[in-house]
């Protein structure tokens, strides 16, 4: 029996390629973990049991042909705001409860080419507005390490899915911490990639100058594997970097630490000690650690809370009951808009849409 909760993507890659176990066995191990844990955690809005098994079978055939790629046969969970053609994608909202995606997000196209297995779509704060996954229209997700606690958010379902062994990795989206914060809450590695490095085509937009899709994984190496698979220029997302503009990794590794910011207070002493010991470890591995100041940092939160709602309310204007999603019948078109949005959006989304 596979110990799925400890298994990494890199480890599974070796196991699959050496034929120690099949992609179907790996997927079944995740599905049985879901059966055990999901009733208490609610990481998923939908588990794609049948199609996941079919995808695993196809992955086994790829592996048998010697065409295995880094994510072939790896079970992944996908945040509910990333489109998979023919699959429901609701962004955790009643307004899209029955919406079926008309096309694939670019990141999904890339993962399909890898031969990844899509295990299910994960719970989230409605339209990614929140930091606890309590704002989902379909009920909250619990932290697998302690179900009395939240998993963080807005990508809390993706974080919980990886933390409980329901998937080996997951995709989330991060506008103002929605990958990094739940990853921290669930003891995982979460990456918000540099803006422009991953295509957002097929991601339901929140704050367009901030949104990025990124990975959840158990290790830095695993997060890198997913990031490498999904990154790259996309003609369908004009904000994605042309490949020639991609930053080459610096040769001299210098890590900046915002010492005065960190020591302002508000961080648990145990965490601070852990952070400092991590810095010592990095130093011993050859990194230079340097204290830096970001004078504009004190304005960051204010800028975020002005820009984000402005961009989000613009992006949410498309949910009006006309082209897709919920449509509440009414006498006039103005009433259709108002009733659909009033009933379809949850409290937090209504509030953000008015800012």
């Amino acid at each position, binding site marked *: 029996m596979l110990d799925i909760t400890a298994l990494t993507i890199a480890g599974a890659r070796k196991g699959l390629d050496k034929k120690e176990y099949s992609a179907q066995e790996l997927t079944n191990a995740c599905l049985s973990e879901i059966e055990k844990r999901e009733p208490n955690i609610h990481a998923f809005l939908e588990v794609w049991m049948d199609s996941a098994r079919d995808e695993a079978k196809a992955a086994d055939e790829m592996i048998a042909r010697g065409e295995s790629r880094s994510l072939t046969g790896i079970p992944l969970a996908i945040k509910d705001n990333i489109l998979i053609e023919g699959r429901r994608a609701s962004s955790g909202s009643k307004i899209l409860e029955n919406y079926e995606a*008309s096309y694939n997000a670019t990141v999904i196209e890339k993962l399909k080419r890898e031969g990844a297995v899509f295990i299910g779509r994960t719970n989230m704060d409605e339209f990614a507005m929140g930091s606890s996954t309590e704002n989902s229209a379909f009920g909250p997700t619990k932290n697998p390490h302690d179900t009395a606690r939240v998993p963080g958010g807005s990508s809390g379902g993706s974080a919980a899915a990886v933390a409980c062994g329901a998937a080996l990795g997951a995709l989330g989206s991060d506008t103002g911490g929605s990958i990094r914060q739940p990853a921290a809450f669930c003891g995982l590695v979460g990456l918000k990639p540099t803006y422009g490095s991953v295509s957002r085509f097929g991601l339901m937009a929140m704050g367009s100058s901030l949104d990025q899709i990124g990975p959840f994984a158990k290790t830095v190496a695993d997060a890198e594997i997913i990031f490498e698979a999904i990154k790259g220029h996309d003609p369908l997302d004009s904000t994605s970097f042309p490949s020639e503009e991609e930053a080459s990794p610096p040769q001299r590794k210098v890590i900046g630490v915002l010492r005065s910011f960190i020591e302002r207070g508000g961080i648990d002493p145990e965490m601070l000690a852990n952070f400092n010991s991590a810095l010592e470890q990095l130093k011993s591995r050859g990194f230079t650690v340097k204290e830096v100041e970001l004078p504009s940092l004190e304005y960051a939160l204010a800028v975020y809370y002005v820009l984000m709602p402005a961009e989000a309310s613009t992006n949410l204007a498309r949910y009006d009951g006309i082209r897709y999603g919920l449509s509440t019948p009414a006498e006039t078109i103005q009433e259709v808009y108002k009733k659909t949005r009033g009933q379809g959006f949850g409290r937090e989304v209504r509030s953000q849409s008015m800012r």
Partner: protein
Amino acid sequence: MMSAMAGEIDIKALAELARLEVGDEELATLEREIPDILNFVRVIEKAAASSEEESPSLRNVVRADENPHESGVYTEKLLKAAPAREGNRIAVKQVLKKNKE
């Protein structure tokens, strides 16, 4: 607008602009919450004077207007998601009225 105090925000008008039907009780709580954003605007106002202007490097991200896809290839896929349709159109309630009210 930027100097508006909490009480000066017409919350009903904001809901109207956002095309949202919001109950009176909720409007009352929003009336207290929403003006918070003005505090953030005030913080940014303090920053503006001291920051240097940077000119970003610009590039054209618009594709050439050529090689369009075959007409209609996405029509069915997209119409399938529409709440109401008439033939190859999305059906909506009347937008313009003949007589002025």
